[in-house]
């Protein structure tokens, strides 16, 4: 009796897969939701908009020069960037300039020889939009602009960054 009631409930609560998984989820800095859009100027003076990068796998990493785990994990991120940039990987290492300084960020980038884009969050609005509560915080975003993984805290190992990026690139294939 109990089993048949449970089976009937399961049948009654079935869903249309297309309607259930399709459609764009509202922007929210969480796994399974669309990544909130932003436009920021970068350390080299250009501008970057997240939504312009649709179709590419994007890693958004929030960091500051005074943050020790950020220092430890940045070489691993750089290694992964060099290995996968030709396969469609874009890394946006957003410096929380509102709690750092442009000069310190520039020295940091020179020290580690970083070759990816460094957007500057001058007023802290983007980190607030992403509800960043601790540094570093990293978002792995697929080609549809959906966040597939959030890593709060660090340092991330190279294997972690590489495996998550490979997952997203494989999904694209």
């Amino acid at each position: 009796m109990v089993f048949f009631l449970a089976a009937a409930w399961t049948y009654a609560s079935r869903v249309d897969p297309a309607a259930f998984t399709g459609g764009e989820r509202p922007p929210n800095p969480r796994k399974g939701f669309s990544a909130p859009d932003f436009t920021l100027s970068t350390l080299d003076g250009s501008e970057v908009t997240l939504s312009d990068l649709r179709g590419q796998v994007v890693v958004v990493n929030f960091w500051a020069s005074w943050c020790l785990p950020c220092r430890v994990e940045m070489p691993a991120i750089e290694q992964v960037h060099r290995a996968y940039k030709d396969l469609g990987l874009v890394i946006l290492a957003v410096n929380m300039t509102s709690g750092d300084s442009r000069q310190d960020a520039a020295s940091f980038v020179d020290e580690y020889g970083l070759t990816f884009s460094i957007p500057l969050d001058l007023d802290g609005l983007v980190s607030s939009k992403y509800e960043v509560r601790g540094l570093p915080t990293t978002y792995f975003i697929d080609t549809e602009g959906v966040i597939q993984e959030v890593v709060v805290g660090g340092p991330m190992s190279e294997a972690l960054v590489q495996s998550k990026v490979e997952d997203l690139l494989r999904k694209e294939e």
Partner: protein
Amino acid sequence: MLPYLRLGPLLLQTPGLAILVGLWLGMTAAEKEAKRTHLNPAHIYNFLLVGLLSGIVGARLAYASQYLSIYLENPLSLFALNLNTLAPFEGFLIGLAAAGLYLARRKLPLRPVLDTLTPGLAIFFVALGVSHILSGQAYGMETQVPWSIFLWGEYRHPTQFYETLAALLILVVIWLRPLRSPGAGLNFLLFVSLTALARIFTEAFRADSSIIGDFRSAQVAGLVILALSLLLLHRWMKSPTPYVPESVVTEEDPPPGETDSPDRGPSLQDSVERNL
């Protein structure tokens, strides 16, 4: 939802903390229950520890095996303190296998062990619900019901609360031990049946279900588990095991029949006959 708690320079991840507290309380409850089922609490503690540690190590190794070339290049990454590089399902199976091996090696009787674990499992499921309340994961579908909560930009079913409430009710039922017969494995099967039933019910309100065909996969898995546990419950009630396995009675434990502990309840045969 309160996923993080800042304590000075420390940022505590509260869902993880709830899981850890649940594990600790669950293990403590299982140790206490061991006295009721006349098992050696130390064996139960070791059984859980073996399962837990093997599960964690297994989850990392299973994850690494999926990215073998990456981990061969960076073998030290195996030891990274990061939960994002674990394969939870594979870890669960490996932990279960390791705990099973420990059970066989120690010649611990299956049904009393399962009953011993039951209150701890029920507590852990409450903690899991609390962790979902804190993180906001396992979120519900959009709704206009008066008790909806505003979460992730929409008014949604508070599925985390449904889940926790169901786990609390199950804990109360398990604590009351309505089927009596401690050590016969019936309390465990009752817990599994109720938990499967609760999941089948609450899953219908979730917005993050994985789908098989037109069905939610957790509900389908729940139905299979419910059917198996009900069948086994029927069978085990008909063929009860001896009340206390002699081989595992500890020196401190009085032999069966020589205690008038109120926790013991009636004999198995009596209670099975009554339940049938």
